[in-house]
């Protein structure tokens, strides 16, 4: 595969020549400063701390907008700007600068992070109003924004890794924010550990890159990728994918994301929907040239993406906890992006576009879910909701827009970007392309079903509230961000996709779009029609199942699909035999895999390490003679190794 990228913008990296861009590090420094003031200031800052945090996030956003303005003022091929901050590491020949790379890709992310981040900051003022540790919460949020910006603005893998670990740490602090909940502490630890597994991949790949190329800076590495062996690049690619899987909750490292919903809802919206979990997609797109030099790795990326897409959707169908259902959806949507990113240059722009719109509508959905929970005394079980549309009109409306966007109603954001991915998958050609394409189409139908399920269970049907529930609409400080996000969910897709605005903007980094923008083709292609039909089927089926009075308040034995199957038994035996039973098995298997499979492997490893540890620590007998014996054993080993290897 030819590297379309190296010829493009990469060669033309220029140093920042003054102006806003030279101070791009302010984008990171401002929220970092906010976090520092809030953490070090202690209780004195309780009164105004959250406003400071919002100011920091907003000013960072403003700086990002100004930087974008200056970037757009340059010719497209000069839009890769390096901002040198300082020399970070210099140990021997190991020399790494802390530099920022301002290019269309990183700016897209920076705007998403600071924009959505600011909105969620504002929302949190209301959501966390009654929490005595609100100041600390905002400090962590600011810390997260700073770390995430380091991740996307880095101009080399080492600094990227710095941000990567930073967001991991901030995420860890935020998931465990409600320390009094043991589940939260466990979830935080789990997230941290599974992410460490991913980090191993990233770290080892960085070392391999450094040893191979003598540098870890993006441009020099990408320029010399062609000279390196394909086997090495495949190894690097797979290791990078491992890192991406950890951070983006892709199979097989997805287990932490659902548990992470123990954190406060704004955290789920910001970190576990809009920004941090997309870091894996960013990593793959950013490392495009490496993956293009390693088709095997690319294929694995698409397989992982496709598998996660389906698995996440099925998990989304099975959860009664509104946040966990949305988390399953997040997995699934990121599966879309990963799949697209694995397709190579034809998929990059589609992946990023979907990432941006997803950031908006999923953040909106989570904030809506938070608003509902806020109203329902932190109840998360959707079976105890129902009929909320009249009580919470604003939430219903904004949630509804997000819902319509994610299921892919034409001309709303989700439709534009998901169509892009479906098209890219079929365009990639060959049998693989066909399979991947149909997976994405099938995913659209599943998305429609589980999202409708959430929608109908929550806002339609009868009221199944707990006795003491007294739902009410949320205050303006919460609804305004939701409204803004809803507007984005409705309109952003068109802005980004029509005439390939975003794709053209990203072209210097990811390559130009393969063909002209053609709305008629988009509307009439058999694949998009198929997706549309499946979507309608999904919605209709969910309507029949959940928009009525028959939803039991407690989940029946097994899970709801058992009941569904039982009811279908009387109505349509063929349907049951052909679709329901295998579907049921698949759902069960997927959910079981999520609950026990990977989890089981993780806990199993943890358990066996612990068991080994308990046994090994018995070697520490306390008898000095036994220690001496081990030493003599060691001496024998050392002597035998040295003599054996050299004289044999």
């Amino acid at each position, binding site marked *: 595969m030819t590297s379309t990228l190296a010829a493009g913008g990469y060669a033309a990296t220029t140093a920042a020549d003054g102006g806003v861009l030279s101070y791009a590090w302010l984008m990171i420094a401002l929220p970092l400063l906010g976090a520092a003031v809030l953490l070090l200031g202690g209780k004195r800052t309780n009164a105004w701390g959250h406003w400071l945090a919002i100011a920091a996030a907003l000013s960072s956003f403003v700086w990002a907008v100004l930087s974008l303005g200056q970037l757009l003022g340059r010719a497209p091929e000069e839009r890769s700007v390096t901002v040198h901050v300082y020399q970070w590491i210099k140990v021997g020949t190991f020399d790494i600068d802390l530099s920022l790379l301002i290019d269309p890709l990183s700016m897209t992310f920076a705007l998403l992070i600071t924009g959505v981040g600011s909105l969620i900051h504002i929302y949190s003022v209301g959501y966390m109003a009654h929490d005595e540790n609100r100041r600390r919460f905002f400090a962590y949020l600011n810390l997260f924004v700073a770390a995430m910006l380091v991740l996307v603005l880095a101009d080399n893998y080492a600094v990227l890794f710095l941000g990567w670990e930073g967001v991991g740490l901030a995420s860890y602090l935020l998931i465990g924010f409600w320390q009094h909940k043991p589940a939260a502490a466990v979830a935080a630890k789990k997230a941290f550990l599974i992410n460490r597994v991913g980090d191993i991949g990233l770290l080892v790949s960085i070392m391999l890159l450094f040893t191979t190329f003598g540098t870890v800076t993006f441009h020099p590495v990408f320029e010399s990728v062609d000279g390196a062996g394909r086997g090495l690049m495949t190894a690097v690619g797979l290791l990078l994918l491992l890192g991406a899987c950890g951070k983006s909750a892709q199979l097989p490292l997805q287990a932490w994301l659902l548990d992470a919903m123990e954190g406060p809802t704004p955290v789920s919206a910001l970190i576990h929907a809009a920004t941090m979990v997309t870091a894996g997609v960013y990593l793959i797109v950013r490392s495009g040239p490496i993956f293009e030099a390693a088709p095997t790795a690319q294929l694995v990326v698409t397989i992982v993406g496709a598998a996660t897409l389906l698995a996440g959707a099925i998990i989304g169908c099975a959860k009664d906890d509104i946040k966990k259902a949305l988390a399953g959806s997040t997995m699934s949507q990121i599966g879309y992006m990963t799949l697209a990113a694995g397709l190579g240059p034809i998929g990059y722009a589609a992946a990023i576009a979907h990432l941006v719109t997803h950031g908006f509508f999923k953040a909106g959905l989570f904030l809506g879910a938070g608003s509902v929970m806020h109203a329902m005394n932190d109840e998360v079980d959707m079976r105890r909701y129902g009929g909320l549309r009249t009580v919470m009109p604003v939430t219903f409306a904004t949630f509804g827009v997000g819902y319509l966007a994610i299921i892919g109603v034409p001309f709303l954001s989700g439709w534009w970007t998901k169509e892009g991915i479906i098209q890219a998958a079929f365009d990639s050609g060959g049998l693989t392309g066909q399979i991947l394409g149909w997976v994405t189409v099938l995913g659209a139908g599943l998305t429609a079903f589980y999202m409708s399920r959430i929608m109908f269970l929550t806002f339609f049907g009868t009221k199944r509230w707990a006795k003491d529930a007294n739902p009410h609409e949320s205050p303006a400080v919460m609804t305004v961000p939701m409204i803004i996000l809803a507007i984005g969910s409705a309109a952003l897709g068109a802005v980004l996709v029509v005439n390939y605005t975003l794709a053209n903007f990203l072209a210097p980094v990811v390559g130009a779009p393969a063909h002209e923008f053609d709305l008629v083709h988009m509307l009439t292609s058999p694949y998009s029609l198929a997706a549309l039909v499946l979507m309608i089927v999904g919605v209709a089926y969910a309507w029949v199942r959940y928009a009525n009075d028959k939803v039991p308040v407690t989940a029946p034995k097994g899970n709801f699909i058992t009941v569904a199957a039982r009811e279908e038994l009387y109505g349509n035996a063929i349907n049951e035999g052909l679709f329901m039973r295998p579907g049921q098995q698949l759902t069960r298997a997927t959910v079981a895999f999520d609950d026990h499979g990977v989890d089981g492997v993780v806990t199993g490893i943890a358990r066996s390490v612990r068991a080994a540890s308990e046994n090994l620590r018995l070697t*520490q007998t306390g008898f000095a003679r036994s220690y001496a014996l081990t030493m*003599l054993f060691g001496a024998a080993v050392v002597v035998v190794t040295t003599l054996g290897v050299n004289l044999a």
Partner: protein
Amino acid sequence: MDPMNYIVLAAIVFTIGAVGVLVRRNAIIVFMCVELMLNACNLAFVAFARMHGGIEGQVIAFFVMVVAAAEVVVGLAIIMQIFRTRRSASIDDANLLKN
């Protein structure tokens, strides 16, 4: 006879000393076995010095004796201290610290 025989003898005595460290429980004897090992080293140094015609080996052996003397003082002081506390010079009895 080849002078390497001295070295082989040294290796054997060294190993016997090491075994002594492992099997004896009286701390004083254990320590004495360490001295046995040091003596074995000294034999090797002296034999090598003669083989190579340099005196360095003897110099080292001399230093080793001095070091051993200092070590003996410290070691016996520690053993005595333990003995006065526990009324036992068995190193097996000193196993509060474990696992």
